[in-house]
């Protein structure tokens, strides 16, 4: 019997160790697993590497993790958004490490980890400072840079609905990084707005098959 549903947010993030690399879904405010991130704050893991598109805003989610000094390093594409005050303060003070990755490369590197690939060559960023120290190769007359897979110990994802097998569907543009991050972590934890019975999700429209998911928790909207 497969039942990936857990009863509480605390159970959902149980066991995340200090030093873990945590993939956190979301683009802007859409698709951010806010309650899971707060549960992780509560849980207490520190010295984290956070992989996420933005670096948190205001006082919630990733910004709260940074404020509470749980984050050693951020891997992201766009840390500088309106209200990213905690990241900017820690960055200026040299208290947080930043690895800046072009957005498509960020997503593709996680996909490579999920797909069991050893890395890939991309033209994105190959002409830029972000290729410094990396292997660059001319392919079909164009500069490409070699990018390595990016794997998480944990992924925290927000989706719309899940069944007990962990099959997921998402809502509109809140889908964003979720399906890729779910494939790329040792432990994939998902918060959904609603549990449904096995068989209720259309097999043609499941976005993340349950094979990629370890725990799901319901968080009322």
């Amino acid at each position: 019997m497969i039942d990936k549903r857990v009863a509480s947010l605390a159970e959902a993030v149980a066991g995340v160790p200090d030093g873990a690399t945590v993939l956190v879904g979301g683009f802007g405010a859409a698709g951010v697993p806010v309650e899971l991130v707060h549960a992780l704050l509560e849980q207490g893991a520190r010295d984290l590497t956070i992989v996420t598109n933005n670096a948190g805003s205001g006082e919630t989610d990733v910004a709260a993790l940074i404020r509470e000094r749980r984050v050693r390093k951020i891997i992201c594409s766009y840390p500088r958004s309106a209200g990213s005050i905690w990241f900017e303060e820690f960055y200026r003070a040299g208290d947080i490490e930043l690895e800046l990755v072009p957005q498509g490369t960020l997503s593709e590197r996680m996909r490579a980890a999920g797909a069991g690939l050893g890395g890939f060559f991309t033209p994105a960023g190959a002409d830029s400072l972000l290729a410094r120290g990396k292997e660059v190769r001319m392919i079909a007359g164009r500069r490409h840079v070699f990018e390595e897979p990016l794997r998480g110990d944990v992924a925290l994802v927000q989706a719309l609905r899940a069944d007990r097998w962990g099959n997921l569907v998402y809502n509109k543009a809140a889908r964003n990084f979720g399906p890729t991050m779910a494939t790329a972590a040792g432990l994939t934890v998902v918060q959904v707005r609603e549990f449904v019975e096995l068989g209720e999700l259309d097999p043609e429209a499941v976005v993340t098959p349950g094979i990629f998911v370890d725990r799901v928790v319901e968080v009322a909207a």
Partner: protein
Amino acid sequence: MTATPLSHTGMAARVAQDIPDGSYVNLGIGMPTLVGDVVSAGKEIVFHSENGILGMGPAPAAGEEDWELINAGKAPVTLVPGGSYFHHTDSFMMMRGGHIDVTVLGAFQVSAQGDLANWATDDAHLPPAVGGAMDLAVGAKRVLVLMMHTTPDGRPKLLPECTYPLTAAQVVDRIYTELAVIDVTSSGFLVREMVAGLTREELERRTAAPLAYAEEVAVLAPTGR
């Protein structure tokens, strides 16, 4: 000068004229998003948003915002019939893989070789941020730059070589400013259109790289739809 520069809306309208019916288009954050508002109603343009939307429509009416349906600038949008949602990796497959017909991007600087600098300045105080610009710049079939001709303090942004860090080399096809429409050719900048009343000397004073001129330089005028 005696010339009347275009307004931001006028600049966006000029870009919109160059987008063919049936195109798949990605608009960068900032001024480029204006292009979506002024595209002709007679054209069917499919707007792509990097966060997983194809068929992005205009902003919703006040009170009808759905914060899980936002654009790359994080503002609420809508979906038109025929639109679809997909995940980020698929979205960037569209961008990097040459499936977007046209992208309109802002820029800090463009070089005469078409090098684009639009992600980082030399201000070390700010943390760097790149977003999806690099994938778009290398992947879109046509890269249009929409920007002011000079910086707010009057320094040229069209240069022989970019001094800011590059986004991508040799990718820009055409530049639209409040003063001119300029192509990037294999021999450098080529002025296609200039606003009325602007002299070549004035334009060249605001441009740091050599300018060539089309045989007939057209008048760049604010257009209706």
